[in-house]
């Protein structure tokens, strides 16, 4: 009874989310077992066909491909974003808020346009190539578009603020006395960072990674525009299947597959983190 009272305030929130997200989730799961007719309308006939299909080697490669892209996006945003967050906390408090504001600002304009911004930069007649040719550094324009790397750059660019803000929140609240103590004991700056700061900010890293990893599985137009549509990622496939492919049951099965993939990653992370007592989720 005491427990119930203790948990009571959380109930409305759980109901709200369970209703509005849980219901679509159920919808997706049920849909993934249904069939559809030649018009693309959903038919209430149970089938495992959709799941059989996602285990097709071609589609498994799509999963692998997306997984790799998402992990790499997470790692790149971490490598670039961590120092940004860390250095920002070292600034004077007044400058800090300004820097954070500067980091978030570009994300208030349409992501589609920001992606076009990269095309303007990296294209064959783009700004970088024009500059390099003007300066006679290269004779022929460099071929920077429509590669896996271009997609990766675009994805990291779209999602990096989540990583930075998550890490920033976690570094910022760090107990300064621990760092001071480490210095007092004669540890170098680098050692202090490795032994004190980094381990204590792992929850921030994990939070940031989650907020980057999951959305990057679902993003679709970045790889279409920057990657030249030369490979397929889960986000594109699900989106195509729902719209022009008109195969919603199969799209649902892919969505379930994607959710399972994410849960698997979180589960593994939790296992690893638990040993260190840092489990976030």
């Amino acid at each position, binding site marked *: 009874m005491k427990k119930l009272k203790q948990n009571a305030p959380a109930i409305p929130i759980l109901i709200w989310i369970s209703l509005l997200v849980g219901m679509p989730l159920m919808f997706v799961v049920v849909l993934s077992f249904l069939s*559809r*007719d*030649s*018009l*693309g*309308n959903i038919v209430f006939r149970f089938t495992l066909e959709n799941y059989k299909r996602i285990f*097709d080697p*071609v*589609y498994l*490669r*799509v999963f692998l*491909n997306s997984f790799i892209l998402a992990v790499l996006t997470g790692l790149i945003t971490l490598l670039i974003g961590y120092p940004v967050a860390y250095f920002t906390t070292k600034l004077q*408090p*007044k400058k*800090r*808020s300004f820097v954070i*504001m500067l980091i978030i600002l570009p994300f208030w304009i349409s992501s589609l346009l920001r992606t076009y911004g990269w095309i303007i930069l990296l*294209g*064959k*007649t783009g700004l970088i190539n024009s500059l390099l040719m003007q300066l006679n550094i290269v004779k022929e324009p460099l071929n920077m*578009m*429509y590669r896996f790397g271009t997609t990766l750059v675009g994805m990291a660019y779209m999602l990096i603020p989540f990583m930075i803000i998550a890490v920033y929140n976690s570094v910022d609240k760090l107990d300064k006395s621990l760092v001071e103590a480490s210095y007092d004991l004669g540890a170098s700056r680098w050692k202090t960072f490795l032994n004190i700061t980094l381990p204590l900010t792992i929850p921030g890293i994990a939070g940031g990674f989650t907020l980057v990893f999951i959305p990057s599985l679902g993003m679709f137009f970045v790889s*279409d*525009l920057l990657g*030249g*549509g*030369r*490979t*397929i990622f889960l986000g594109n*496939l699900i989106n*195509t*299947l*729902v*719209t*022009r*492919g*008109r*195969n919603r049951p*199969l799209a649902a099965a892919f969505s379930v597959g994607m959710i399972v993939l994410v849960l698997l990653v979180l589960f593994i992370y939790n296992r690893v983190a638990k040993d260190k007592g840092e489990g976030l989720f």
Partner: protein
Amino acid sequence: MTKFKGILPILLAVVLIFVFTACGQSKDSGQINLMTWGGDFIPREIIDEFESETGIKVNYKEVTSNEDMQSLLEANPDQYDLAVVTDYMVDILRQNGMLEVLDQSKLSNFSNINPVYQGNYYDENNEYSIPYAVSTSFLLVNPEAIADLGADPITGYSDLWQEELKDSIVVVDWSVEVMGIVLKSLGYEYNETDPEIVEEAKQKLFELADNIMRFETNTPEDSLINREAVVGFMYSNQAVKGKKADDKLEPVFPREGMPIFIDSFVMSKQAPNKDKAYTFLNFILQPEIAARIADITKFTTPNKAAEEYVSEEYKNNPMLNIPDEVAENTSFYINVADVLEMYEHIYSEFKMR
């Protein structure tokens, strides 16, 4: 927190002004709810003119795909009066019983529509749809660059397989269209389901892999303008734009034939403002209006009577004013679920190699 104190009130103030100027819309002479692609697909200036002429307000809901329109219409059939959807979607919506049978007696201007664009498979008796915009897809090429590469001039799809064209083709990113190119080059028709023919097409498609540098649906013409590509398979309105930006580019209507798309007005069976919707349709069907729409949107007008009002630019442009012999050599993608599934899998395999 103090560090934010300065910014916050100002931000809030500016933003709240926006928020509170939100409410309050007048609804005098009634309104109609219209749904289709955005931008100038139905030009705003035409809508403005309609509104000031009739006093009927047009709510223009913008969407990105036919399927979005289907979902929205099927969820709330009583919220939309009119939609403009592509041929195959007319077929789906009418078979699903979503569409109103149009009352021809209320459509005084329907006779303006070119018979060539009437009575197609998706609406044999012109009961449900009124053609609004016609587009095709074909090849836009850069003849000079092709000669420079040492390749033969391009007259049809089968020329795309030349080794010299390595990494220099851009195509629309959609399995059905790419398979369509291959099927046509082999002498078959679109929407082929015979497994043997599809398998043959698949092998042929894989041979094309090295030549394609980019799959792009929205701005394929850009790749020709900036010289990344020498050939592009794209929609007519994109080719028109490409040609306008760069006069060296030339359209090629493939000798094997090409796909055609007819975007048509349809009315929801439960449309709340049917009479006003008819007023709007009649307005759009006027030859002068249809001609202006064609000039703005760069889509071919199905309105025969409009042809005397269109600009010289339109008249002299074979991409818009499609020659009859070209128009005869077009066919529809039917987009049947089984075809889609088969093609989508092949396409995925093609890309994931």
